[in-house]
């Protein structure tokens, strides 16, 4: 674990024990990154500020749910933030569309070449994204970082919504096979 990660893990453990000075230190260390996530997803400063405040209320009350063996502390904080902001984003536009049942997808199984590289290099998602068609890698990024919905993506790429969803689901399975053969 890096020094920064160890520090964050230590702060989270103290916050779980209701240590207010640790909470303040955690806020100072983590809030700029988490605010960037809120802004990027919600695209509205007031919404992002409200979301960040809600996220830290959740962190204060839920720091004991951080499990160091499942995620790095930074990834856990990012996830709490993303889940709150995306729930908010989708709730704001709820009713704009609903998804039909997803098309079933077949698992092509691990790509032998990718597996060989993975095991030799232990590469992470950036490398695996390069294995996707450029347009699909971009769609994954737009969905994750910018919070674009299937509807927005389908309009951007001028494809039917269900086609967009199939693209992304297939891309996800391809990424997974690359990351964890």
């Amino acid at each position, binding site marked *: 674990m890096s020094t920064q990660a160890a520090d964050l893990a230590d702060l989270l453990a103290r916050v779980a024990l209701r240590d207010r000075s640790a909470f303040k230190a955690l806020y100072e260390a983590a809030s700029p990154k988490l605010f960037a996530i809120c*802004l990027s997803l919600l695209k509205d400063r007031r919404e992002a500020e409200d979301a960040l405040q809600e996220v830290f209320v959740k962190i204060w009350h839920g720091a004991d749910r951080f499990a160091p063996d499942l995620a790095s502390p930074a990834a856990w904080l990012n996830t709490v933030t993303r889940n709150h902001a995306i729930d908010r984003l989708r709730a704001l536009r*709820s009713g704009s569309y609903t*998804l039909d049942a997803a098309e079933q997808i077949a698992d092509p199984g691990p790509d032998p070449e990718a597996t060989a590289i993975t095991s030799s290099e232990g590469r992470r998602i950036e490398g695996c994204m390069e294995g996707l068609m450029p347009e699909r890698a971009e769609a994954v990024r737009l969905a994750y970082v910018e919070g674009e919905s299937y509807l927005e993506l389908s309009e951007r790429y001028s494809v039917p919504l269900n086609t967009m969803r199939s693209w992304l689901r297939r891309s996800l399975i391809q990424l997974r096979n690359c990351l964890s053969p």
Partner: protein
Amino acid sequence: MTDLSTDDIALAGEYALGTLDHATRGTVAARIGRDAVFAAEVALWEARLDPLNDALAPVAPPAALWRGLEGRLFAESPRPSPWRWIAAAGALSTAMLAAVLWFGAPLATGPGPMWVSDMVSEDGSVRLAALYDEDRGEMRVSVGGEAPPEGRDFELWLIAGEAAPISLGVMPEAGQAAMPIPEDLRPLMLNATLAITDEPAGGAPGGVATGPVVALAALRRI
């Protein structure tokens, strides 16, 4: 080693990616709560995709946000607040239905229980009448008198018991507005005081009142 179908693995990925619609997210979140294998797959996806956050440069949040958070979580700690004297105000009521009629077009009343709060500033220059329809969970406000100063907005607050005031939103400069009251706030409306404060344009930063109280009045059943 997994009991999940490829479709379930993709669904877990879609949840972490964030693309699911509101209703489907709710269904998936419920499944995370009761299906440990599926929850573990979601956690794996969250970890797999997390490096994509590296693309985001940190942005310092406004300083007021920490103060708001501190006020909200550690309310017993001393903090400058225009609210200290308000605790007793719930008892000082002015339930004047006539206020609703001040502003030209009368506010429509529904068949169910209605609540009214008429807020008038001390010098009478700012007036705001609020009519809450309990059955519909909707409040209509009618704003009259002087507009807020340049670059400022009037913000409406719900004060219930000892809790920190909850923002109900920035008021229009004049005229009427309908405001749906969120489900979780509705029970609070039945024993509450409403207040207007003078805030920076767009409303109090961080959702915590900063400006002086312009007017306040209890919500009274009519």
